[in-house]
């Protein structure tokens, strides 16, 4: 068990910088997820921690030791790959014990470790099978088992669930979380799926274009995104962004979408945005769940407006509505009983207590 630290880590391929200076502290026992779109450098970062890629600049430390020059096998890490990378000619037990056998562990010890991992992952009856005879989910378990028996300082997961179908993915997600709760090994997990990131992580690292956009707990990222990228990447359906400006109307701070629509800001928000220049081009960020059907009595900070719905998507427990507000496509979530229908008008309410205001040019959340 160990902490992992990255200091100004850079990866260059010829002229291209794939990773442009990453600073990250991962505490012992922590489960950290690197998430971002493809090509954001998350996998490269993981592979540098593993030692499969050398680093162009900076330092990587595992358990306080700089491991820049240490080959993968001496870093005491284990890795789970997207395509499982099970050795096809070995049985499950042989797959799991390969690393230990190379290190010449005593037979009894190998056996007890394999048995324990197999029991933990519920694959005891599969240990004598070859990978070919296993289903996707079972292969995934074996790949994890191979990591667990090594009892490494750090677990590295490289998009381990993306080859599984949707249902199995949810199941394995819970499985991974359970395993981590049992073994408590420091884990770095790479995925492009924000739901996976949110559900698994103690802390999520959102990456884009080789840089870290934001580090935080899932709730922090959801409720206090630092940039437009994070705000739009985390959460599904994504946050709505509506062009707007700040304006003082009758002594109160308002947000003006266009000439026609203005909303007064609740006091807490008004105080926070007081210093923003009134001429700045801004974006009003609203999560779909903060745009709902209007109730007869509006709570403080909630403003009502009328909209004509373009499309509705009944999801069962809620209905997603899409409408055009001052030229922007906006998504909201309403009660299934609110009477939302394609092409029909509906009176909606927007909860400005949970609004975000972004600088349109820099993308920074104010």
């Amino acid at each position, binding site marked *: 068990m160990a902490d992992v630290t990255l200091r100004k880590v850079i990866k260059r391929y010829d002229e291209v910088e794939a990773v442009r200076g990453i600073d990250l502290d991962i505490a012992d026992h922590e489960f950290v997820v690197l998430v971002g779109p493809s090509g954001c450098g998350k996998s490269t970062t993981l592979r540098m921690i593993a030692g*499969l890629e050398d680093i162009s600049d900076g330092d990587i430390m595992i358990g306080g030791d700089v491991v820049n020059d240490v080959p*993968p096998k001496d870093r005491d890490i284990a890795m789970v790959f997207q395509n499982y*990378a*099970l050795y096809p000619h070995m049985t499950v037990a042989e797959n799991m014990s390969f*690393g230990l056998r190379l290190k010449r562990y005593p037979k009894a010890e190998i056996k007890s470790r394999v048995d324990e991992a197999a029991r933990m992952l519920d694959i005891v009856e599969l240990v004598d099978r070859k990978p070919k005879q296993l289903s996707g989910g079972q292969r995934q378990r074996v790949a994890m088992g191979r990591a667990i028996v090594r009892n490494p300082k750090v677990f590295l997961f490289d998009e381990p669930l993306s080859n599984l179908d949707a249902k199995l993915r949810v199941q394995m997600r819970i499985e991974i979380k359970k395993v981590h709760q049992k073994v408590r090994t420091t884990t770095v997990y790479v995925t492009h799926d924000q739901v996976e990131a949110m559900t698994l992580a103690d802390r999520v690292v959102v990456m884009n274009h080789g840089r870290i956009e934001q580090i935080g707990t899932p709730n922090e990222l959801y409720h206090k995104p630092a940039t437009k990228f994070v705000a739009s990447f985390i959460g599904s359906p994504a946050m709505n962004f509506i062009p707007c400006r700040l304006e003082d109307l009758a002594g109160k701070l308002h947000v003006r979408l266009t000439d026609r629509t203005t909303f007064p800001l609740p006091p807490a928000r008004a105080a926070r945005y007081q210093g923003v220049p009134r001429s700045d081009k801004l974006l009003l960020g609203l999560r779909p769940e903060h745009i709902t059907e209007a109730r007869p009595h509006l709570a403080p900070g909630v403003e009502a407006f009328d909209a004509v719905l373009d499309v509705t998507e009944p999801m069962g427990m809620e209905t997603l509505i899409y409408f055009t507000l001052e030229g922007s496509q906006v998504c909201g979530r309403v009660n299934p009983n609110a009477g939302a229908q394609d092409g029909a008008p509906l009176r909606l309410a927007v909860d400005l207590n949970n609004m975000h205001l972004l600088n349109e040019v820099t993308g920074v959340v104010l």
Partner: protein
Amino acid sequence: MASTVVIDKGAPTRKVKYGSMSRDRAWALRWSYFFLIVFAIFSLVPPLYMLITSLKSSAEISAATNPWWVFHPTLSNYIELLTSNQFLTFFWNSAWVSIVVVTITMLISVPAAFALSRMRFWGSATLATGVFLTYLIPDTLLFLPLFKMFAAFGDWTGIPLINRWYVLLIVYPTLTVPFCTWIMIGYFASIPKELDEAAIIDGASWFQTLTRIFIPVAMPGLIAATIFAFTVSWAQFLYPLVFTTSTDQLVLPVGIITTLIKGDVFNWGQIMTGALLGAAPPLIIYAFLMDYYIAGLTAGATKG
């Protein structure tokens, strides 16, 4: 509603069409079988004729009875050849040469293919292409300069190469190694990159990755390459004809042709028996490992 109508309209025409198609199919099938039988006869006549002749006595052959039938089958040709020291020498020479060449070939081409497919180094791509082109340089272009080189080497070092069976151990790899390397590059390249990364993280060295992961996983390719190397060594005719002359140094194909054909006297019963025995090892391997044999044959073109 609309879709039901379409199906109703489409069904009758489709049925008629399907019927005519299946009738076409049946005829196509009959023609296929007819021609396949013709071609199979064409393919199998020479080996079958070898077998027929090998079972005849010299007297029956010179009596010019129906050549396609054996009236008095005898194994005398087989007994004579298999008890002849000379023939057994040819056979063992061939076996030795082929087995050693297969070993040398694998020892050279497997590590080279591993290096070329996985451990990219400067010039490795060029080298891989070069290996393939080398395969295209035929033996008939090289036998004269090689003959001169080996003769000169013998004069220079005092180690005779010409007219020694072991000279074949030196030249046969030039025929087997390029193609086997090429096949193995193809097989190794099809192993996912993550597999060696997993092995590296598991603590395997490059050598262990090769011996414990790559070779077992690419076993079918290895078998195909081995078969290829063996059959090429066994069948090679030009090099032993050029480089060896004494009867104790000959391998089977050359031995049969130079010793069983004595001047104008052709003992066809024995020649056919010898030819059949010479063809037996590749045929047996082929019979049991046909799929690997074909995999090796097609790998060169499709993998590249």
